[in-house]
């Protein structure tokens, strides 16, 4: 539908965006690397409650082609910045049940500090920047689209995400 005039490289959308349950086990098994002594995996799971209400399930919508390209770009940037041996991320779309994983990020590198930092950087950017939207369906029949991040309330700057401020403080 969209012609490929993007400046970003072409990517396989299904590598980054999946409408099937995320295979954490398979992704983790594939993320061991002989040069990398530290592997960090993050899984964002659907909680059973939010805003004091019981969550029945979530539904994620994405502009999949764009999201896949942006995730690929974020992973490339993190790989260069922290010299990662492995950087993997996949986000679920469609209906996701309580307890299931909505997003997974895996980083592997010789030393653990870099694996943790890069992992957190990747998930923060995915959550804040990539065109993926969460809709919570509660057991009382109501639903709520995930809104803007409330970073500006924490950072005091409408254009600053919390992880940008944390990064500056830590370095």
């Amino acid at each position: 539908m969209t012609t490929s005039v993007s400046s970003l490289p072409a990517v396989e959308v299904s590598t980054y965006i999946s409408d099937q349950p995320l295979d954490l086990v398979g992704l983790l098994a594939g993320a061991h690397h002989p040069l990398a002594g530290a592997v960090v995996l993050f899984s964002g799971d659907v909680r059973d409650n939010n805003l004091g209400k019981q969550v029945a399930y979530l539904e994620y919508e994405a502009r999949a082609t764009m999201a896949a390209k942006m995730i690929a770009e974020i992973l490339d940037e993190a790989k260069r910045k922290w010299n990662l041996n492995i950087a993997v991320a996949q986000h679920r779309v469609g209906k996701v049940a309580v307890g299931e994983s909505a997003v997974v990020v895996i980083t592997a590198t010789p030393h653990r500090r870099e694996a943790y930092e890069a992992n957190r950087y990747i998930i923060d950017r995915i959550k804040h920047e990539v065109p993926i939207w969460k809709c919570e369906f509660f057991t009382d029949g109501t639903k709520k689209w995930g809104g803007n991040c409330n970073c500006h309330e924490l950072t005091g700057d409408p254009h600053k995400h919390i992880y940008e401020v944390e990064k500056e403080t830590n370095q």
Partner: protein
Amino acid sequence: MEVEVFALLKDYFDKKFIVPARLSDIESLKQHLLDLNPAAEQVLSSCRFAVEDEFVDHNYQLKENDYICIIPPSSGG
């Protein structure tokens, strides 16, 4: 030119719709959307626009076959 909207924008507009070719830039497209549904003003003010999967700014000049996505703030993860 075709427009696709996402997430809570679907409460204000059809998922996909055609817009008139006379719209010259993103700013005039935005005005057109507000004419269609004035209640969308606040929601639209926090959205970004993408053409062919690349974000564009408000003076981007629209072309005849552009496919425009209106992107609310992300809430993935």
